[in-house]
C-alpha cells in the first residue's frame, strides 16, 4: 500500500477537520490511503457518528421495565405482551429529499423499513412527519408533490400501510425541507436479531441488490449545509449523492429475511444504510469486539470496474450484511435464491480487531475497528441558550370580528387544513389490520390475529420550539402522549428525530440542548422512555437554519380493540365535556399567527403532572367504554378540535362556555392552546364530571352534540358543508396546479 498521505484539499473535501485528520494519523500510525480516508470520512460524519449530539443524547431516559432494547440498536424494542415486541424508529431523509424529492423520500421510507425488519420484525405501519417551506415559495409545490409521491411509491408497493403523520408549512423550511419517516414492526420476543457479530471464522454474507455507484458519500452530504443554488455546494449539484430506491426488491428482501429469520441460521444482521458496506461491517465487528476480513472481488456489483472506494462507500439501497452460523450457508442461499436476490459470502470474522479489505489478492485497506467505530470524535459544542420571550396575556390579543369566520379561516389554513390529499395517496389499509385510519389523533393497527392493537403518532410544534426550545421539546412529547391516550392506548415509548441547523453555531446548539432537555424532562415525568432516534443537523442554507424541529414518534398499546375512541362525533344529543384547565393561552398560537398576523410570545406552559393525571383519566374512561368520541386539543384550541370532531362524524354540535368564575375572554377560550386537554362526547356529563372531580381533573360541560351545524357561542350556526369546504379545499386547490 502507498504510504503517501492524501493532500490537504482531499482531506477537506472529505469533510474532515485538520484536528480530525491528526487523530486519523495517530490511530493509523501512518497516512491513510484514499480508501481508508473515505472510510474515516463517512464513519466520522455527523450523520453516522452523532459527534455533536451524543453528549446530550446520553441525558435522555431510555429505560423502563417494558424496554427490551433501547438506543444503540437499529431500532428500539419494547415488550407488548403475549411474547411479542414492538420494534420502531423514526429517521430523517431531509437533505436527499430537498435535492430529489421523489427518490429522497422513497429511500427514506426504504431505509427505515430496513432498520425495523433487520431486527426480525414484520413492518406493520409507516408514518411520516413532513415540513415544507412557505406555500408561496416557488419550490414548495414541487417538493410536496415529489415527497408524497415518493413515500407512496415505496410504501404502497412494499405493502405496509401508512397510517399517520403530520405536515407543517413555514418559511423557515424554504431552503431545507424535513422528511422524517417512521416504521413500526412486530416481532416475537424470542426472534429478535441484533448486529453483534460473534464466532471467529463465521461467514460474512452479502444479500439483496447489487452495489452500484449511487449515493457515494451520501452520509457526508447529509452532514453539511447547502450553499446557494448553482454555487459550489448547491443542492442541484449534489443530486448524484442521492440513492435510487427499488421497493420491489425491498419487498423480496423483507420476505426472504423473515423466512431465514424463522430458522436458526443467523448470528447477526445489519442493513446497509448510510455509509453502506462500511458502516454495516464496522458496526457488526465493533459490537462483537472482532475483526473482519473481506474479499471485495466477491461483492455483487452492478457494473465492472468498481473501485474498493466505490464499493465501500456506495449507498445503493436494499442490501443486507449477515453473519451466519457455520454450515448454514446453503440453507441461507436457497432462501435468497428463492426470492431472486443476490447472495455472496464476502468474508469471515477474525480475532484481529481489524477490518482487512482485499481485492485482486492484495490488501487495499487495513484499519483498526474500535478506534473508528467507538473512538469517533465527540464534541461538547459551545451553546447559547435561546433567550426567553415574553408571555402574552389573552387580553393583549385582539378579538376576531366574527368568531365563526375566524374558525373557518383557521380550519382552512395550510397548517390546519385536511391532509386527505396526502394520505389518500398512501395505501393505509393494506395488511387488513388498520383499525384507526389517518385523520384521527393516532393511527391504530391491530396486532395480527388478535383483538389487541398498537396506536402510533408523530408530533412536534416547531413554532413552540422556536419560541422556547425547552417548553417546545416538552410539548412535542406531551402531545404525542395525549394523542395515544385519546384513542385509548397506553403510551409506552418514543422515538425522536431531532432536526436542527448547524451545531457549530452556538445559538443552534442552544436550541438543540433546550429541546433535548425538554424531551428528557417530559419523558421522565410520563414514564415514556426514548428507545430509538436519529439526529439530523446542518439543516440550513446560506447560514439560515430551520426552526428547531424535534419530531416525536410514539407507540401505545390497546388491550381491547372494542374499547377505543375516535375523533368522530357520531352520537346525537350527547354532552361535550372538556377535560383540563383552560387559561386561554394565545402566545405562539395559530390564532395569533393566522388571525392576528403576529408571530410572537411564549408557547403554552406544559404541566407534566396535569398531563399525566388528565391522560390517565381519559384513557380510563375510554377503557371503561364511557366515551363516544375523544379528541386531544392542540393547534387552534377548543373550537378547531370540535370542528374536526363534527366533520369526522358528520354530526353538528353547539358550544357554550360554562358559567364559572375566572373564564378567559371568549376568543381565548375558543382558540387558546392550553395543554393537557381533551374534548370528549359522553351520554351524560354528570357522572363524568363527578369522576373527574374525584381524580382531581378539571372538567366542565361545554356543549352538546346534534344537528347539522356547528354553533359557537354568540355566533350564527355554521353548516357542516361550509365547515367541510373550508377544511378540505385548500390543499387540493393548492396542489391542483401542479402536473408533477
Amino acid at each position, binding site marked *: 500500500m502507498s504510504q503517501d498521505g492524501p493532500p490537504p484539499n482531499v482531506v477537506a473535501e472529505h469533510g474532515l477537520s485538520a484536528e480530525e485528520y491528526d487523530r486519523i494519523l495517530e490511530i493509523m500510525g501512518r497516512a491513510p490511503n484514499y480508501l481508508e480516508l473515505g472510510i474515516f470520512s463517512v464513519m466520522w460524519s455527523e450523520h453516522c457518528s452523532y459527534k455533536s449530539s451524543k453528549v446530550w443524547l446520553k441525558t435522555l431516559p431510555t429505560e423502563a421495565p417494558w424496554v427490551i432494547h433501547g438506543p444503540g440498536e437499529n431500532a428500539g424494542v419494547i415488550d407488548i405482551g403475549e411474547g411479542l415486541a414492538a420494534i420502531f424508529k423514526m429517521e430523517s431523509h431531509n437533505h436527499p429529499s430537498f435535492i430529489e424529492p421523489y427518490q429522497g423520500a422513497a429511500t427514506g421510507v426504504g431505509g427505515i423499513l430496513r432498520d425495523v425488519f433487520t431486527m426480525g420484525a414484520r413492518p406493520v405501519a409507516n408514518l411520516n412527519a413532513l415540513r415544507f417551506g412557505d406555500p408561496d415559495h416557488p419550490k414548495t409545490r414541487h417538493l410536496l408533490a415529489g415527497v408524497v409521491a415518493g413515500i407512496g411509491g415505496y410504501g404502497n408497493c412494499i405493502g405496509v400501510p401508512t397510517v399517520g403523520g403530520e405536515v407543517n408549512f413555514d418559511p423557515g423550511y424554504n431552503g431545507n425541507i424535513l422528511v422524517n419517516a417512521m416504521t413500526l414492526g412486530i416481532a416475537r420476543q424470542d426472534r429478535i436479531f441484533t448486529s453483534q457479530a460473534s464466532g471467529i471464522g463465521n461467514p460474512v454474507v452479502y444479500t439483496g441488490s447489487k452495489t452500484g455507484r449511487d449515493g457515494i458519500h451520501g452520509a457526508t452530504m447529509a452532514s453539511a449545509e447547502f450553499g446557494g443554488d448553482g454555487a459550489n455546494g448547491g443542492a442541484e449539484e449534489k443530486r448524484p449523492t442521492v440513492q435510487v430506491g427499488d421497493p*420491489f*426488491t425491498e419487498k423480496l428482501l423483507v420476505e426472504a429475511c423473515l423466512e431465514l429469520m424463522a430458522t436458526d441460521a443467523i448470528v447477526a444482521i445489519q442493513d446497509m444504510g448510510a455509509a453502506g458496506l462500511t458502516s454495516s461491517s464496522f458496526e457488526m465487528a465493533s459490537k462483537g469486539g472482532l475483526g473482519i476480513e473481506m474479499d471485495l472481488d466477491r461483492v455483487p456489483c452492478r457494473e465492472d470496474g468498481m473501485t474498493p472506494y466505490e464499493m465501500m462507500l456506495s449507498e445503493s439501497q436494499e442490501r443486507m450484511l449477515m453473519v451466519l452460523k457455520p454450515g448454514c450457508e446453503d440453507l441461507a442461499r436457497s432462501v435468497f435464491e428463492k426470492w431472486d436476490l443476490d447472495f455472496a459470502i464476502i468474508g469471515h470474522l477474525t480475532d484481529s480487531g481489524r477490518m482487512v479489505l482485499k481485492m485482486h489478492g492484495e490488501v487495499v485497506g487495513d484499519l483498526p475497528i474500535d478506534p473508528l467505530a467507538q473512538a469517533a470524535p465527540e464534541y461538547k459544542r459551545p451553546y447559547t441558550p435561546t433567550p426567553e420571550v415574553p408571555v402574552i396575556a389573552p387580553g393583549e390579543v385582539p378579538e376576531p370580528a366574527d368568531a365563526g369566520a375566524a374558525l373557518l379561516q383557521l380550519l382552512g389554513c395550510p397548517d390546519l387544513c385536511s391532509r386527505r390529499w396526502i394520505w389518500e*395517496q398512501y395505501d393505509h389499509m393494506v395488511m387488513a389490520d388498520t*383499525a384507526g385510519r389517518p385523520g384521527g389523533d393516532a393511527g391504530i393497527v391491530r396486532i395480527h390475529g388478535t383483538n389487541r392493537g398498537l396506536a402510533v403518532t408523530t408530533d412536534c410544534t416547531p413554532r413552540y420550539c422556536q419560541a422556547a426550545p425547552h417548553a417546545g421539546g416538552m410539548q412535542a412529547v406531551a402531545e404525542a402522549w395525549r394523542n395515544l391516550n385519546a384513542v385509548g392506548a397506553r403510551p409506552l415509548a418514543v422515538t425522536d428525530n431531532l432536526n436542527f441547523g448547524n451545531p457549530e453555531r452556538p445559538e443552534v446548539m442552544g436550541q438543540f440542548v433546550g429541546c433535548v432537555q425538554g424531551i428528557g424532562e417530559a419523558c421522565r415525568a410520563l414514564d415514556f422512555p426514548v428507545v430509538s432516534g436519529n439526529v439530523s443537523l446542518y439543516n440550513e442554507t446560506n447560514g439560515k437554519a430551520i426552526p428547531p424541529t424535534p419530531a416525536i414518534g410514539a407507540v401505545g398499546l390497546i388491550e381491547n380493540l372494542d374499547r377505543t375512541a375516535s375523533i368522530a362525533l357520531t352520537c346525537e344529543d350527547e354532552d361535550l365535556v372538556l377535560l383540563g384547565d383552560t387559561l386561554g393561552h394565545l402566545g405562539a398560537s395559530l390564532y395569533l399567527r393566522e388571525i392576528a398576523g403576529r408571530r410572537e410570545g411564549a408557547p403554552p406552559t406544559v404541566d407534566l403532572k396535569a398531563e399525566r393525571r388528565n391522560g390517565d383519566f381519559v384513557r380510563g374512561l375510554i377503557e371503561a367504554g364511557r366515551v363516544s368520541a375523544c379528541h386531544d386539543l392542540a393547534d387552534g384550541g377548543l373550537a378547531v378540535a370540535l370542528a374536526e370532531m363534527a366533520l369526522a362524524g358528520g354530526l353538528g354540535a353547539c358550544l357554550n362556555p360554562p358559567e364559572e368564575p375566572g373564564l378567559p375572554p371568549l376568543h381565548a377560550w375558543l382558540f387558546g392552546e392550553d395543554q393537557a386537554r381533551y374534548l370528549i362526547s359522553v351520554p351524560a356529563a354528570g357522572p363524568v364530571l363527578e369522576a373527574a372531580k374525584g381524580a382531581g381533573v378539571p372538567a366542565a360541560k361545554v356543549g352538546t352534540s346534534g344537528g347539522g351545524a356547528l354553533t359557537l357561542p354568540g355566533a350564527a350556526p355554521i353548516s357542516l358543508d361550509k365547515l367541510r369546504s373550508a377544511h378540505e379545499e385548500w390543499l387540493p386547490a393548492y396542489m391542483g396546479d401542479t402536473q408533477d
Partner: protein
Amino acid sequence: MKAAVIVFPGSNCDRDVAVALAAAMARRNPNTAPVMVWHKDADFAAVDLIVLPGGFSYGDYLRCGAMAAKSPVMREVVRRAEKGVPVLGICNGFQILTEAGLLPGALIRNASLKFVCRDVTLRVETGQSLFTSRYEEGQTIRIPIAHHDGNYVAGGEDVARLEDRGQIAFRYCDAGGALTGAANPNGSAANIAGIFNEAKTVLGLMPHPERLADPALGGIDGRPLFDGLVEALS
C-alpha cells in the same frame, strides 16, 4: 371447498385475502383454509377456486400485471380457467387477468394520475353469479380501493358487449346509487369497477373486498362475496 391464493413476487394482499377467505370457509366448515401457491409452483393441486391477490407483482415494472401474466403459474391458471375453474382477481389480480386475456380491456393510469386509497361506493350490477349471489342487484356497498392504475378501458363495442351480456359486476356510484362522474375515482369507462368473463366464472375487480370483511376494520360489506363463493363452491 378447496381454494388457492397465488403468490407472485411483489404480491402484498395475499395474506389479506387468504384471511378473509379462510374466515368465510371456516364459517361453513371449520378447519378449512386456502393454500398459498408460490408462482414457481405451476403444478399445484386441484382446487375449486383460484385467487389472484392485490399487490405489485414483479414490481409492476413494464406494465401492471404484464410480467405476472407470462409467469409459469399463470399458464396453468389460464388453462384451468378455460376449463371452468372459477378465478377471482382483485386489484393487481384484475390487472393480471386482463393482461392474460382472461378478461377483456385494460387498466391504465388513474385519470388523476395519482395513487388513490379510500372507501368507494359500488353498485352491485347482478346477483346472478358465483361471486355476487349474496348481494342483491342494485344494492350499494362500501369497499376500499387502493391503486394507481385502475382506469378501466376497452374498445367501444367491448363495453357495450359487457353491458349486453351482463358481464359488469360492480360499478362506482354515489351514495344514492347514481353513476356520476364524481363517484368515479379513476376515470373508468362506464364507471366499471369489476367485470366477469362471458361464463361468469372469472371476476376481476379493482376494489378490495377483503379489506372490509371484518367489523374490527370498520365494515363487512366485502364479506358476502367470500361467503357466497364458499356457499356456491362447497
